[in-house]
């Protein structure tokens, strides 16, 4: 029997820099397209404000944190209130590995930066797929 629960994807809130915007957009791309119907977003501000639904979901189901930088806010929040994340993606590290520059604006991404966000989304989707594979019963 194959068990495929939905996987929670939580982006950092990332107001401080463009990498946070990339994290957010990549998370939405996973939710809307790459793993539509298989993922759920955990809204980090709601989670931090104490919403029991968000915290309960993160306790009961696997989560992937998508972090703009090494401060790892989303991962730390999930671990503090719900439990370990199943995976963490560090967007800053990914971009450095690809030789891609961080976005110049935190409000609007260029077409090239959107392509980079899509690459991040594909990495997140890959991580989601691995978690789903691990859950195969």
């Amino acid at each position, binding site marked *: 029997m194959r068990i495929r629960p*939905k996987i*929670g994807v939580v982006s950092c809130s990332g107001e401080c820099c463009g990498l946070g915007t990339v994290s957010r957009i990549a998370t939405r791309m996973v939710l809307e397209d790459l793993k539509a119907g298989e993922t*759920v977003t*955990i809204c980090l501000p709601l989670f931090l404000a104490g919403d*029991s*639904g*968000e915290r*309960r*979901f993160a306790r009961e189901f696997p989560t992937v944190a998508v972090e703009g930088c090494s401060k790892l806010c989303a991962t730390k929040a999930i671990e503090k209130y719900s439990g370990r994340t199943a995976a963490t993606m560090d967007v800053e590290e990914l971009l450095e590995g690809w030789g891609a520059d961080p976005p110049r604006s935190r409000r609007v991404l260029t077409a090239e930066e959107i392509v980079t966000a899509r690459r991040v989304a594909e990495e997140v989707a890959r991580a989601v797929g691995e978690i789903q594979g691990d859950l195969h019963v």
Partner: protein
Amino acid sequence: MSSEYLELTIDKFLLRVRRGFRYSRDHVWVEEGPVCSLGLTDYAQRRGADIVFLEYPRTEGQILEGEPMALYETIKAALEVKAPFACEVVETNRALEGRPELVNEDPYGEGWIARVRPLDPESVGRLLSPEEYLELMRAAEA
């Protein structure tokens, strides 16, 4: 499981069905009495999203079963709260004029939509029980 509600978890959402109420297939709850309070279920408010506007096409007089008791708008759509049975409107919830989000925040309490007198007192008993409504929700999400 709460003593006051039946509960169904879908993804991260805990949907509640108030015990002791009756329910229409159009997702309206009814608190039985000579004058019945009614409103949108937790499931309906969750699916519809945040209510930005809510209006009453009529605040008095008779309404037939299935006719709109209230019209509400979210960013997704313009929707209707349909009369679960033929009734006479006794009172509408004035608090919703300035704060329609009460329907989202407290659908079974402060977010009540109208108080009505059924034209046929037995019509309330013909509505769904909480358990039947829970099954209707479960089937819709399957």
